Every structure is written in C-alpha cells, then in structure tokens.
C-alpha cells in the first residue's frame, strides 16, 4: 500500500496545479463581456466585467472593429461597466480591456467576444414622450368623440370675418387671403389657416364676393383651389369659383411681398386676411393693406410677427385663437370637443408650471428633476 501513496499524492498535486492554472490570476479582469444595449434605437454596446482587484486600479478600454482602434479612456475598475454609444448598428466590435495599477503599469489585458449593436422594438429612452403623447391622444380622443357642443367665448377677429366679407360685397371689391410665406402644408398652422380659408371661401361664395389667394407654394395653391371650388359647390353656386383668382406667384420671400403689394395697390381689396405663418414680409403686407383702406384680420403662430399685425390690423388672432377659430365658426361638436380637450390640457400645463415654480422656490429637487425629465 505504501508505494501507492506517493503516486496518489502526486495526482492530487497535479490536479490542484491544473485547477489553479485554469482559473485566471487575480490580476486578470474577470468575465469581460460586450452586448447590445437593450431597448434602444441601436448604435450602443454595454461592456461589463467583474472586479476582483483593489479599487484604485483602472481599466483602459480600446474599441477594435472599426477602421482603427479607438481608445475610450480609463474607467475606475469598480464601475464594472461602461456604455459605448455612437456605433454603427450591424457591425461587430471587440473591446480590449487593459488593467493598470495605481502607478500606471499595465498588469493584464483581456478581450471581449465580438458584439453587434442592434435597434430594438421599442426605444425606452423615449418612453416618457410615448406616455405624454398617449395621454394627449387619450384626452383629445375623449373630447373629440364625446363631441358635446360647448359655449366658446366669442373671438372678435373671427366674428368680424363675416362683416368684412359683407363690406367687400357692398363695396364691390374683392377679398384677399394670404397664408404667409412661411406656410408649408406639413405645418399644423397651415392646416388651421386652410381650414379658415375653406370657411371664408364658402362665405364668399354665399355672398358672391370675389376671393383672391396668391400662393407662394404650388401644393398649397392646389389645396386652396380645391377648397374654394368645394366651398362654391357646397353653397350651390359653383359658377362663382374662379380658378384664376387662386394662383401661384413666387417662392421668393420678397418677390411674394412685392407681388402682394402690387395686387393690394391695383385691386384695392375691401378686406384682407393674413392668416398663417408669416416672416419678415408680414409688416410689408399688412401696412400696405392698411394704406389701401382694407379691413384687416390677421392670425399667426409666429410670435415675432404678432406685434406687427397688432399695430397694423383691425383684428388679430393670437396664437391658439387661430387654431380654435374653425371650431368656433363651424360649431361642429367634434371640433368643439377637441377644443375643450385643448383647454383641459392648458389647465394641466398651468398646474405643472405652478408646481414647478413652487418646487424651485422650496428646493424640492426630486419634483424638479421629475418635471425636467419630461
């Protein structure tokens, strides 16, 4: 039995030596790993490791996989992860992690396996926006399809529209509508202005007033032609629709202003509607309109141009009034319901503003940070 004992001892020693050779030494970073960051739009990887070394060691990371290696800077070894963003989705990246001791000497180097950033089904970083939009949708849908008629405070500029057109008919002069050089069909303000134009076109057809619409954009011109044609048809007077009165002028800002000034001086309209998105041409147009003696009604979402309209026009729809005007004019229960939803949300926004103000004054950082997140 004795001879066998040294042999068994040798096997145990060998096994122990093999085991210690398989496990990495303490100075080598444990479990280096790179993986796609979940719930994002792609382009980011999360690199992780396990730390078994003193906390004053650092990890120097290099990204391999692009045209040339990129040094991503030293990280505290205790952080155990970092996120590499701004990458190209679908390309494999490898990370080299070098451990340095407090004196800056490199102790060991390991590499991760290749990993690819991928876009996911939902971008979690936009969850707050999704919740906010879902709430907005819910309130608007509820208000719109509940659709009960509501009392809306009279908007002076809107009630004056019909008077302005009546004046034009009495004077035998045309009505001019401009949507502004800044209007584009993908802007909500343009759609709101076209809604009002649809109403004015119908009224013009019912009164028999001539309606001019010089456009700076051919797509808007086509939409306005369609709207005016339908307005005349709905009033049972399709013969009053004149396609040549809704025409393209130019896409140039001051060319448009010059053309409209010329039209104002030649045609001398009895009423002008400046409703839409305006830029520097607003004052040139409305001041000329004032000089030819037209009744002027303006409405815009451009805060800078509002001041010019206020001093040159008889009535001005300020910001949201322009969006509310069509609901007011048509008395459509659904549109009025949507307007009611808008007011509910305004109360919510005002409440949030007051809460934010109080939180800032009382140093309630948690509330402030929560609100800032949105």
């Amino acid at each position, binding site marked *: 039995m004795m001879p066998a004992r040294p042999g068994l001892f040798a096997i145990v020693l060998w096994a122990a030596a093999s085991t210690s050779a398989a496990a990495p030494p303490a100075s080598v970073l444990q479990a280096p790993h790179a993986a796609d960051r979940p719930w994002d739009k792609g382009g980011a990887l999360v690199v992780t490791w396990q730390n078994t070394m003193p906390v004053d060691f650092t990890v120097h990371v290099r990204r391999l996989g692009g045209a040339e290696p990129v040094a991503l800077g030293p990280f505290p070894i205790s952080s155990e992860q970092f996120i590499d963003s701004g990458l190209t989705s679908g390309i494999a990246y490898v990370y080299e992690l070098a451990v340095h001791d407090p004196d800056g000497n490199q102790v060991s180097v390991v590499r991760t396996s290749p990993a690819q950033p991928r*876009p996911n089904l939902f971008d979690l970083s936009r969850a707050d926006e999704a919740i906010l939009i879902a709430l907005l949708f819910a309130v608007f849908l509820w208000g719109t399809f509940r659709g009960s008629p509501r009392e809306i405070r009279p908007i002076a500029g809107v009630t004056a529209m019909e008077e302005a057109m009546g004046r034009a008919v009495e004077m035998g002069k045309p009505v001019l509508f401009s949507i502004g050089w800044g209007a584009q069909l993908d802007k909500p303000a343009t759609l709101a202005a076209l809604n009002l134009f649809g109403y004015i076109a119908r009224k013009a057809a019912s009164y028999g007033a001539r309606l001019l619409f010089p456009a700076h954009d051919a797509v808007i011109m086509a939409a306005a032609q369609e709207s005016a044609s339908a307005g005349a048809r709905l009033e049972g007077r399709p013969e009053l629709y004149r396609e040549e009165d809704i025409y393209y002028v130019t896409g140039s800002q*001051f060319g448009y202003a*010059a053309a409209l000034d010329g039209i104002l001086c030649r045609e001398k309209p009895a009423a002008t509607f400046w409703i839409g998105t305006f830029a520097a041409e607003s004052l040139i147009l409305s001041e000329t309109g004032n000089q030819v003696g037209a009744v002027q009604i303006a409405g815009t979402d451009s805060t800078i141009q509002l001041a010019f309209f206020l001093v040159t026009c008889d009535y001005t729809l300020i910001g949201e009034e322009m969006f509310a005007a069509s609901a007011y004019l048509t008395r459509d229960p659904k549109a009025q319901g949507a307007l009611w939803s808008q007011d509910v949300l305004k109360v919510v926004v005002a409440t949030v503003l007051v809460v934010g103000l109080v939180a800032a004054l009382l140093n309630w950082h948690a509330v402030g940070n929560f609100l800032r997140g949105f």
Partner: protein
Amino acid sequence: MRLRLPLFLVTGFGVALLLQYFIPLPAGQAFYSRALEWMQVIFAAGLLLGGANFARLHLKRAATRKDERPYSLLALAALATMLVAGAVSIGRDSTFLWLFDNLQAPMQQTVFSLLAFFVATAAYRGFRLRSVESGLLLSVALIVMIGRIPVGELISPVLPQAASWLVDVPAVAAKRGILIGVGLGSVAVSLRVILGVERAWLGGSQ
C-alpha cells in the same frame, strides 16, 4: 372617394410616422427616409405645377387684359430667361448666377429695405397715446428704445437694465404663454386632421 382617399392616406401616414418615432427598427427608419424623399418629390412636382400655373396665368392675362399685358409679358420673359440660363449652366461663373446676383438679389433687398419705412409708420400708429393701454405700450417702447442705444446709458445706467429686464422677463413670459397655446393648438389640429374630423383643408364640409 374624392375625399376618402386623401383622408385615408393622411390617417395612415400620420399614425405610421408617429409610431415609427418610437420603434427604431431598420424597416421603420427606412420608411421614414422614404417618406422624406417623397416629400422632396412632391416639392419638385409642386415647382413644376407652380411654373405651369404661372405661365398659364400670365399668358391668359397678356391675351385678355390690355393694361396688364406689358407686365405679364415681362414676367413670362423673365421666367423663360431664367429657365434657359439654368438649363445651360449652373455654376460659379454661370449666367444664371449672374442674373440671380445682379437682378434678383438687389430687387429682393430693395423690397426688404422698405421694411424700415413701414416699421416707422406702424410704430407711429401703434404708439399713439389713445388709452391707458396705449400709454403703457408707449412708455415701455420708449424705455426699450432709449435703453438699447448708447445715449440711454448716459441718461441713466438704470435705463439699459430696465430695457433688458422688459425684454427678458415680461416679454418672454408672454411669448411662452403664446407658444404653449400654439403647441397645444398644433397638436389639436394635427389630431383633428389625422382623425378626419377636420376636412375643410381638403375642400370638404366640416
């Protein structure tokens, strides 16, 4: 059908592009890029439509309105000249650019410069002392105008500070109030259009 097809397209594209914002899959991104490309295509087609409408309108006016004939002919000649110049060459030393720099740009600047005179007449009308409100407006305008020029500092160092405060605090507060209303109004109109509640812009009845 004339109204339903555009409404169907607006609702479909509106909802799809909204969802795409939250779903970052390659198919969604490709759909978004394609939609932007189509916007460019529609814009280009719109230019053609505009050019054709412009030519047709002025040809008709030249033929039917004697008093406006010279202007319409000039407009048509300008359109033809720029089209030919652009078709021949567009570059640094091209005739097209020369025409743009030496004719169109000065004309635009001329119209823009009219703004200075219009501001003066509009300011005169706006600042007339007629009521308490207009008096307040006049006082604030005077403080801001004098506070913004060097002589304001000489009159009193308080004037520039007061001008800055008026511009940075009450004016910004009012502007933000309007912008919040505009933002909510934009969402409301967009939803009304996407849901097909608002149809006047398409020529439909409300």
